[in-house]
């Protein structure tokens, strides 16, 4: 093709194509679009949860940038002269003053502040639920373990971004939260006081922490999170989305609708739905009314002080821990605060490392793109449910005063309930969940072999009443029997061919034990086989 011809064709092409050509010549967008423009995404309501996270994150960034235009991250004391009468003439930090200004004197400022804060709560809640979706369906299995960790890090960083964010207005409630954090830092053996002095630029509260939290809140943490979000999404595209078992759906394909146009419209539209709902919530429901709490003073406090919900479980740890202190050789080991400080990350790590433990137990090295139904993996489901119950017991502990006043309970008994429940509730929930899962597996098996209960009662000639069961379609039969079942890993021969005894390592024994606990007879119901099915369906008069 001569240059002339190329030019001629280029001139004739529509404007959009010419722009795309230009970009392709520099960025290679056609190759990118070839694999992604019609990328298939499977449909399931639970796949929207991750989208809620992404969209609330975007909303937080948009509204947060707006707030930085008005917020002054400074702890200099000023006298309030704004339009909220009850606080006029009061001394407060510039941070509080400018937050008051945003809330009362910038038109729409309060709305953006409330959208920002609501979106943060929803972001964390959506991440929590999204994580649970991934957990219970086994979507974290190979090849998605790294993406699980990305997501986990986003959740943890989201918590700290939220904490540093709600501390910025320097109001009485958040200041109390910062004081609590300082107290927790002080409890660290050997370096606690140094950490605290470096963090606050001296003694608490000093004049630095708002400015420092500000750069952490708007730059450091969101910057890392943005990188993780991008990585998370790239991996979602690269791995292709998981899907539930069903007719036509295999481990080697992905069935659904194309990105252009269906998911472009659905996902794009969903962003607006999420944003719209959050804006409406911010219009109706007040959040963090700092004017009602007033500026922070280290010698003042209000009752019913509660952190944002995602910090509640750490609050629970600190509230129910007995006040142990050990004094020796002129030093104090503040176990009553330090133990909760150590357990706090451990609660989170417990769920984060689970995928690696499971893959070690199964020894499975293959890729998994078909999601598990939670009932088909009873031990994992039970573990997840136990973890959630653990988390919620701690949330109850974090709100023990609220529970006490709202339900007229003794705060002492709630605290004791949480102390005992911390150890007992997860175990009970584990056992109960496993039972429920096995029951559901039995029901599935029964449905496959005997059909669906039709609700039609038939009276036989000799007077007996039976319920008619309708056989399932092949679609349903396939869906209910598509899951794989592992066999427990046994310890290999302990004596080799020469009769020499091999030493069995401790880890090997542990793994065999765990594997038995996971996949032994007690822990899963063998799924129906074709032979069983044929035997039953070929017989007569089954019911």
């Amino acid at each position, binding site marked *: 093709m001569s240059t002339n011809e190329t030019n001629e064709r280029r001139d004739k092409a529509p404007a959009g194509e010419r722009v795309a050509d230009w970009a392709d010549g520099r960025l290679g967008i056609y190759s990118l679009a070839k694999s992604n423009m019609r990328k298939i995404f499977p449909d399931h309501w639970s796949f929207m949860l991750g989208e809620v996270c992404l969209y609330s994150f975007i909303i937080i960034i948009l509204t947060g940038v707006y707030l930085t235009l008005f917020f002054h991250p400074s702890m200099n004391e000023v006298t309030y002269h704004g339009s909220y009468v009850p606080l006029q003439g009061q001394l407060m930090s510039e941070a509080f003053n400018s937050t008051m200004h945003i809330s009362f004197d910038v038109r729409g400022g309060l709305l953006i502040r409330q959208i920002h804060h609501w979106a943060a709560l929803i972001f964390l809640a959506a991440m929590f639920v999204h994580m649970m979706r991934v957990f219970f369906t086994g979507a974290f299995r190979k090849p998605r373990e790294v993406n699980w960790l990305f997501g986990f890090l986003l959740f943890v960083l989201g918590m700290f971004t939220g904490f540093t964010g709600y501390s910025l207005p320097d109001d009485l409630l958040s200041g109390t939260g910062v004081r609590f954090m300082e107290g927790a830092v002080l409890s660290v053996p050997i370096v606690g*006081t140094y950490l605290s002095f470096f963090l606050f630029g001296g003694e608490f*509260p000093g004049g630095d922490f708002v400015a420092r939290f500000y750069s952490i809140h708007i730059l450091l943490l969101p910057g890392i999170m943005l990188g993780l979000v991008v990585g998370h999404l790239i991996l979602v595209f690269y791995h*292709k989305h998981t899907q539930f078992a069903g007719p036509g759906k295999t481990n080697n394909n992905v069935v659904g609708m194309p990105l252009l146009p269906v998911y472009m419209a659905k996902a794009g*539209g969903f962003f607006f739905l999420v944003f719209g709902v959050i804006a409406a919530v911010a219009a109706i429901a007040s959040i963090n009314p700092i004017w009602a709490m007033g500026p922070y003073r280290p*010698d003042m406090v209000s009752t*019913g002080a509660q952190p944002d919900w995602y910090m509640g479980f750490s609050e629970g740890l600190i509230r129910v821990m007995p006040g142990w202190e050990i004094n020796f050789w002129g030093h104090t080991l503040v176990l009553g*605060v330090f133990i909760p400080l150590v357990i706090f990350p451990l609660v989170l790590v417990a769920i984060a490392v689970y995928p690696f433990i499971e893959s070690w137990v199964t020894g499975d090295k293959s890729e998994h793109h078909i999601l598990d139904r939670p009932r088909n993996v009873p031990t994992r489901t039970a573990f997840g449910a136990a973890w959630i119950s653990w988390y919620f017991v701690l949330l109850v502990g974090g709100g023990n005063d609220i529970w006490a006043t709202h339900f007229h309970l003794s705060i002492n008994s709630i605290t004791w309930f949480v102390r005992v429940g911390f150890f007992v509730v997860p175990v009970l929930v584990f056992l109960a969940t496993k039972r429920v899962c096995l029951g559901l597996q039995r029901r599935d098996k029964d449905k496959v072999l005997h059909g669906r209960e039709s609700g039609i009662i038939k009276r036989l000639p000799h007077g007996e009443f039976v319920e008619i069961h309708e056989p399932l379609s092949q679609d349903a039969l396939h869906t209910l029997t598509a899951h794989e079942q592992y066999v427990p890993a046994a310890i290999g021969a302990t004596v080799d061919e020469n009769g020499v005894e091999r030493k069995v390592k401790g880890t090997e024994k542990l793994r065999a034990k765990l594997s038995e606990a996971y996949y032994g007879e007690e822990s899963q119901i063998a799924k129906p086989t074709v032979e069983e099915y044929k035997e039953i369906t070929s017989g007569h008069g089954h019911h």
Partner: protein
Amino acid sequence: MSSQDIPEENLPAEQDAHGAVSVADEQNPFADPGLPPHEHRVQDIDERAAKRSERVVAFLFTVSMLATVGFIASYVGIPHNKAIFVFPIGHINALNFALGLTLGTALFTIGAGAVHWARTLMSDVEIADERHAIEAPPEVKAKVLADFKQGAKESALGRRKLIRNTMFGALALFPLSGVMLLRDLGPLPGTKLRHTLWSKGKLLVNMNTNLPLRPSDVAVGSLTFAKPEGLEETDEEFQTEIAKSALMIVRLQPENIKDKRELEWAHEGIVAFSKICTHVGCPISLYEQQTHHVLCPCHQSTFDLSDGARVIFGPAGHALPQLRIGVSDEGYLEALGDFEEPVGPAFWERG
């Protein structure tokens, strides 16, 4: 997009050609029957239904435009300090309410329109895409390993140990400069946490009236908060100083005081304790007159003020420090020294 625009190959007639089986497999009834045939929506068959959907979507987008106009009108028209009563929420800021609802509507209807469009008018034929293994095929892996070996060999890193070791040394050391730079984030703690503004002869000043306290000002059953004389709200260091020296004063009947030292350090039954909780530093502010218990509202640590402020419930690890007080020549309550032990949360050097 209307149903006419759907490419032929996506329609169910075409799909059936490559293998959607709906009859039960005799050999293996559990076998995968393949993708079920596409079921038409009413919009796929009936152009009038499709038109209706189109109108719904257009209506939603129009509502969005109107809501944005409403947003601008509210922004301009509603004074920012006007409160209105909205059932059942109560009195709320009118501007915030109007801006939020119009913005919410404008956004929500865009979303609802797009989703309705996708669900009713865009093709809903399921398509299957092949997956490919994430891990590289063996020949690619072999090539990469060979390339790496070649590169490593050419760098001579393994052969020239001196370069390797000094490079690792340099790379390991230079981050220390960054650590050093963090040193001035704050001063060293020293003994700062052990001392407060209290000292011998400092008067106890009532936090509310800003006047020195006389013993007669403290009635039985009352709870008074005090600060050291000379500390004013306008002082630069006020926040940091009050975080340590805030005081809680109650009067007990001397015969009710169970702790011997507490009685000695009191004045006519008036006792002064640090207001800062020994758990994680919240100010304690709830006082139960009858039992002389004080409760920290943050984490519910409870202290018995009639028994040396020892912990009787909750997560606090030790009693509240007591300030030794007496009466000055002019008849005002005064401190007889600083706290004997650090106030507030415990720390490693506390001992």
